[in-house]
């Protein structure tokens, strides 16, 4: 007999992925796992939610958001907020000295400032310091685009990408932005963005799942005897 509760009462809110193979994850699983991983890597709860949102958006559009997110979190984990976030001034947002901007922090802040003088607006450009994994910005820009009738162009030394033109443009942008760590220039033009359709279901690699899971596990607490005691039944399930 075990002295642990029989846990008749397993809930519906926790989600960690505990298997050693690649898998097609549901959007709910992606958002939940990536949110926990981002929190485990040191982002605040609210920003960790943004990370979950971004990864889920990318997966929904057929892009391996979890792998991009892990690649970013792996090198940014534990950094202080001031070493992740932009310094915001009209027309130019600077990266922290010696570091690349966190694309989650940058993306969320771009959304927050949309419509404010310091933010991106139609007919203008915004210079932004070095951004880590700028592909993770795309979900945030897509949100701003739809809400504000904006078409975005992204420029950097050696390349450009446009988010105009539906799924094809999106995949093109992802292929050229993937793996970059560069200063960028965002240009906003007026126009109705074409909604990118959902992409094909894609399989997330076992390595990415395991890596995100190990970050997510940092948000958990080893159980104590007292906490086990009240969580579920301590009697048998034979009544």
């Amino acid at each position, binding site marked *: *007999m*075990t002295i*642990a509760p*029989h*846990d*008749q*009462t*397993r*809930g*519906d*809110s*926790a989600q*960690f992925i505990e*298997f050693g193979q690649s*898998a*097609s994850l*549901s*959007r*709910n*699983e992606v958002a939940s796992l990536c949110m926990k991983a981002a929190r485990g890597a040191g*982002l*605040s*709860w*609210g*920003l960790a*939610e943004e990370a979950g*949102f971004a990864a889920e958006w990318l997966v929904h559009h057929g892009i391996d958001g979890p792998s991009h997110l892990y690649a970013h979190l792996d090198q940014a984990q534990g950094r202080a*907020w001031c070493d992740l*976030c*932009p310094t*915001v001034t009209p027309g130019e947002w600077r990266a922290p000295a010696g570091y690349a901007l966190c694309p989650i922090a940058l993306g*969320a*802040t771009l*959304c*927050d*400032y949309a*419509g*404010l003088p*310091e*933010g991106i607006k139609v007919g203008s450009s915004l210079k932004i310091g070095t951004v880590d994994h700028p592909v993770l910005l795309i979900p945030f820009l897509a*949100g701003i685009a739809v809400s504000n009738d904006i078409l975005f162009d992204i420029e950097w030394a050696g390349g450009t990408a446009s988010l105009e033109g539906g799924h094809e443009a999106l995949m093109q942008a992802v292929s050229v932005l993937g793996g970059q760590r560069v200063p960028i220039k965002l240009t906003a033009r007026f126009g109705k963005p074409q909604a990118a359709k959902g992409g094909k*279901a894609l399989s997330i690699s076992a390595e990415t799942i395991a890596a995100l899971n190990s970050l997510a*596990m940092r*948000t*958990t*607490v*080893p*159980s*104590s005897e*007292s*906490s*086990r005691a*009240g*969580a*579920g*039944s301590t009697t*048998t*399930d*034979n*009544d």
Partner: protein
Amino acid sequence: MFQSAHNATSPTAPFRRPASQVMQLERMGCSHPTRLSFLRTMLRRLHRENWTVDRPVWDVDDTGSGHAVYRTRCGGRTYSLVAFAHDLPDDMRSDRVIATAWDATFTLFDGEPTLADIARLRDNVPIQEAGRISTRELTLARANRSVRLFHHVVDALSQGRQPDPAEIADIGYLMRTTAVYGSGKFGAADRSDIADRPELAAPFQVEMLTVWLIRAFTVDIAEHMAMVKGGNRAISLDRNLRRTLGVGNSTGLGMAPFIVRHPVLLNNWMMAREEALARVRAQAGATQSTIAGLRVALDTTIQNAACWTSRHPVQVPKLADLRTDVRLLSDTVKAWDFDQPHPWDALWRWGQDALSCEGQEALLSVMLEPHGDLVDDLADCMGADEAPSFCINGAMRVSELRAILEQHYGWALSIDFTTPENIARFWYVSEEKLEPRLGERATEDGATLEQPLCIARLAAELDDTLRDRDGDEAVAAILLAHPEHRYVIRRVQIAQNHPYAEVQDNLIAAAMLPIDLLRCKLSFFGATRFDPRSDRWVRINLFQGTPFPDEIGLEGMQ
């Protein structure tokens, strides 16, 4: 439709209860199921739309092992419960650290499963969390027998006699589910993939359909085992007795954070229920049929209160209150002057003075019961697309954010978070079970890994920060300077247009009862016989008294 129906100038506005009353945890912990509960919504729909249910596959051997398929057809779609029956020795059931030990496991399949689908599911469904399902599956669930009642029913039926009604009444179910997972868990279809189907638009419809079909399986497997045991002597369970069986469910802390994590959804559930009550109260008069309906509903409530047992020290006095209240209510209704102006409102006001919290919430339920024509459309407003409210309005001024805090979070700002009893607990996720748990801050490690479930304290901390900021500053600047407030700022902005979004209590206080959170959620499911086994887990019954799949169209579907 819903937002406009709920505005302050609507004729029902004067009859609405304020969130400051409705959202207190103690009152939420007295919630009763109503006709807007999700299992009722599902039953009404399948009656109205004449759904058909059959059982094309029953492949279960003499040991009780095998599988069955229950097929539900509605408006061009088919949903199939695939049930795996297991021959589980009693000692396996008691030693639950082994993750494969359930009497039965289930999945709701979107369509009709092929043999290949069944083979795939057989490899995954019986091992539950250790397996993977696909976007063709909508839920994953498992159940254990109530050993005592199951044996009793099988024994009796195998010997050609009906089981003892008192035994059935004592337990109320043949099997108890211990988890019903939906919404993309373990690879299942996401809620967003199916939410636009009319039959699944209301919350938790796939979960309710799963449990309702499981209920049919629990009787079929008992009758099967009786046949194996008794051969020709065995008989089927009497239809009237069968009706009194529901599906048991054990629910613990794992479910408690749900209503905190889904503020828009909680708001919509509460708002629909409160608007329903307001519509009933706002009526100028009462018809003979609604008065008769009230009396029938009250009789059912009295019977239910009489059969509802619990040994838990919190629930025992609440049940005593309820029984006293429903008797008083019954006597009062017999003599009630329904010819007076606004008789329903007068009855409600009487209840507020005369009844305990349990009795008041039971009164709400019985007052809605005869008013289906007036309130059932509100069931369509209880789902939520949470995506739009995820976006923070960074252009909002600090002064406006503070105004929302003052209007909607006054209850939180008045709590003194420097006293030990007000910060006695912390919510965390256990490494061992990956499930939400509640720790004691003073004596347990792990508070640095606290989950953001104490909204009251987060709101108070935000208020502290905002005090030192210029009222004209943009919220965007606060978020950039204080990323730790991002989580609660999102919620505060949600609360601006969702008055019932927050549980208005301190969820880390020493005296907080997690079962109150559970009861609120479970009552919206339609659960009855809420029986706490500690301050943090409960047993309940679902679908007790409702029709079985072969009774669609008969009484009780409404």
